[in-house]
């Protein structure tokens, strides 16, 4: 930033601060990106009269009216409806909804159908985790948190890793999506899942295509783990950042595990571990309301999930607080290991390097995601090699009267619950979804506050400092499926200084080059 601009920004800030202090005890900063559509996240930071961060809030918009929209619709439409609500990970909603229908109609899919579902889901997880590592998480680690804002993007990542690696990622993505289309009918909105099974069997020819791609996916995942090792683990600054206190919380963790307590994305029981790593609960999805409750704060329309038996104790961590965390790091923390050999090796190295279980460092999510990528690829290969997967018996027809069904999967960003209640005709009376970002919302809020207190208190607001606050929630990959663009002359980021009545007392804008300007 040019010195003149810095002076202007400082002057604007100081002027606003002086006005605020003269009239009000507290003042508020809003980090508010201008968005295209579908809502956006926003950070509100309240300062005391000494310029110290008093509280910081992270706000996520939620879609409105879903429950009302679902009412009166046949339950069997839900896998298609819910997959259309989210433009980012429709396959996860489709699968959670399909499993809720199994429970609703009290049917168990035949073994081949169950394996086909997990095959498709593993394919989806490989694709999603790979894209996240290279192109979404990459800007923070591959490019670097201190890099100019204009370089912390997809193109900055490619500039670091090379065009050929980028092409390899995109080529793998295309092949994986072709497989999802092959088995799921459509890649964007699969029509695979039915209560009691799947719509289509897998032929030996289909299986051969899966086997070919699965073998390459394992090699691709190994290659990716090598990239992570070279770019991140060999960089002391990055490792120190992962381990830093500003990005650490000692919370509970939640995730699905199989009958050997290994990570599983598609099925199993939900396991919760304490901040010390001990098992606190293990329960089937149907019991989730005994363990999960939602807290409401007056300043946000986001519901904050917490562990019901522990109660809501505020935005604090530790064994007395019911705040928990989901997503890749949480899944590794709740598991005793990985079900596949190469992923198990990576899992062991993860904990050996980071000081044993559980790991409480939020930024370790990026590494955990690569470990899971390897597991997803290996699991894909196992299922593709399974002779039973071509069994033509892929549907158990429902005969029971429906009433209530709960389904759960591990979406890329964490545990996803679908819960439906119907009348005896199977028409939805009530629907409830808890998505990954809701599960994480309390911990995300804590992360934002801790980072804000750590980096902003009493200091001049600069773009790198704002980015450090943003990194606190970026590691969770909070799910707002929208893109962010500005029209000519518009500003991509605003920092507003407000009084408690909402009057703007000072305004800074951060431009694409990271410079701050006075409004």
């Amino acid at each position, binding site marked *: 930033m040019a010195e003149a601009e810095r002076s202007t920004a400082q002057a604007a800030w100081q002027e606003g601060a002086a006005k605020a202090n003269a009239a009000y005890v507290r003042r508020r900063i809003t980090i508010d*990106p201008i968005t295209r559509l579908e809502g956006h996240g926003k950070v509100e930071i309240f300062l005391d009269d000494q310029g110290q961060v008093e509280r910081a809030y992270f706000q996520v918009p939620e879609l*409105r009216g879903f429950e009302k929209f679902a009412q009166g619709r046949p339950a069997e439409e839900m896998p298609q409806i819910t997959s259309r609500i989210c433009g980012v990970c429709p396959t996860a909603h489709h699968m959670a909804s399909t499993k809720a229908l199994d429970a609703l109609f009290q049917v168990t899919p035949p073994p081949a159908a169950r394996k086909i579902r997990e095959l498709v889901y593993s394919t989806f997880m490989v694709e999603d985790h790979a894209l996240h590592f290279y192109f979404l998480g990459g800007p923070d680690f591959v490019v670097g948190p201190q890099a100019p804002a204009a370089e912390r993007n997809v193109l900055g990542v490619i500039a670091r890793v090379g065009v050929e690696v*980028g092409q390899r990622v995109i080529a793998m993505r295309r092949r994986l999506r072709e497989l999802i289309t092959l088995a799921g009918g459509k890649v964007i909105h699969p029509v695979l899942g039915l209560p009691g099974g799947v719509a289509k069997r897998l032929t030996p020819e289909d299986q051969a295509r899966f086997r070919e791609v699965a073998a390459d996916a394992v090699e691709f995942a190994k290659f990716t783990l090598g990239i992570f090792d070279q770019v991140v683990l060999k960089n002391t600054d990055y490792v120190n950042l992962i381990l830093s206190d500003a990005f650490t919380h000692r919370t509970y963790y939640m995730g699905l595990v199989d009958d050997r307590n290994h990570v599983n994305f598609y099925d199993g029981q939900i396991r919760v571990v304490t901040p010390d790593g001990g098992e606190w609960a293990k329960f089937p999805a149907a019991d989730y309301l005994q363990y999960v409750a939602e807290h409401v704060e007056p300043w946000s329309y986001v519901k904050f999930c917490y562990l019901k038996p522990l109660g809501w104790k505020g935005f604090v961590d530790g064994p007395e607080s019911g705040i928990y965390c989901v997503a890749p790091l949480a899944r590794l923390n709740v598991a005793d290991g990985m079900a596949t050999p190469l992923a198990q090796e990576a899992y062991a190295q993860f904990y050996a390097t980071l000081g044993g279980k559980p790991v409480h460092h939020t930024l370790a999510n990026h590494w955990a995601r690569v470990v899971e990528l390897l597991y997803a690829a290996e699991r894909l290969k196992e299922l593709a090699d399974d002779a039973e997967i071509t069994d033509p018996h892929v549907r158990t027809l429902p005969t029971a009267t429906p009433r209530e069904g709960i389904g759960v999967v591990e979406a890329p960003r964490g545990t996803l619950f679908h819960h439906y209640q119907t009348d005896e005709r199977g028409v939805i009376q009530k629907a409830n979804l808890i998505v990954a970002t809701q599960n994480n919302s309390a911990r995300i809020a804590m992360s934002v506050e801790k980072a804000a207190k750590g980096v902003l208190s009493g200091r001049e607001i600069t773009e790198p400092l704002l980015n450090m606050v943003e990194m606190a929630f970026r590691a969770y990959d909070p799910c707002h499926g929208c893109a962010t663009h500005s029209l000519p002359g518009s500003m991509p980021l605003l920092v507003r200084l407000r009084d408690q009545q909402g009057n703007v007392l000072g305004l800074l804008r951060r431009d694409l080059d990271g410079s701050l300007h006075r409004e």
Partner: protein
Amino acid sequence: MFSYPPERLERVATRVLCLGNPLLADDAFGAAVAAALPGCVPPEVEVVRSEVTGFGLLDDLLNTGRLIVVDTVQTETAEPGTVYCVREGDLRTAPGPSPHYVGLFEMLALARTLRLPAPQEVVILAVEAADCITVGGAMHPAVRAAVPLIVGQVASIVGEELGSVPPTPSWRSAA
């Protein structure tokens, strides 16, 4: 070895990509335009409807010479129903707070950087929306009224030669 496969290289001259989720109130605008376009544009113009964001958009951007994007925007500086016509170069990508904030322009940039078959020309036709987050919500009357206006704009643009869209960086008019 890792380049885009030859079998996916069949190109169309013009694709109209109508974005938005028909379940989300004004975000249904793109789907409404897509439904109204057949018969208003020559049959060789490909009309595609898409509800996805992020990397899911990549497939819809490739293998066309000219891409016309129909979408909603919320600048909150204009009345609902206000329409915009801008070229790709008129917009700037803003860094979002989440890695999920990747969209059309990041995907165009990615495609070009990776030497994928990206469009030579991109035109964006958008309408100012009032509400894009209410599931099952109705479109605002002014947004709905903009559907024929945008259809007319698309028809006008596809009647032009490639590269002959007026060079004005942006214009807008109340619907």
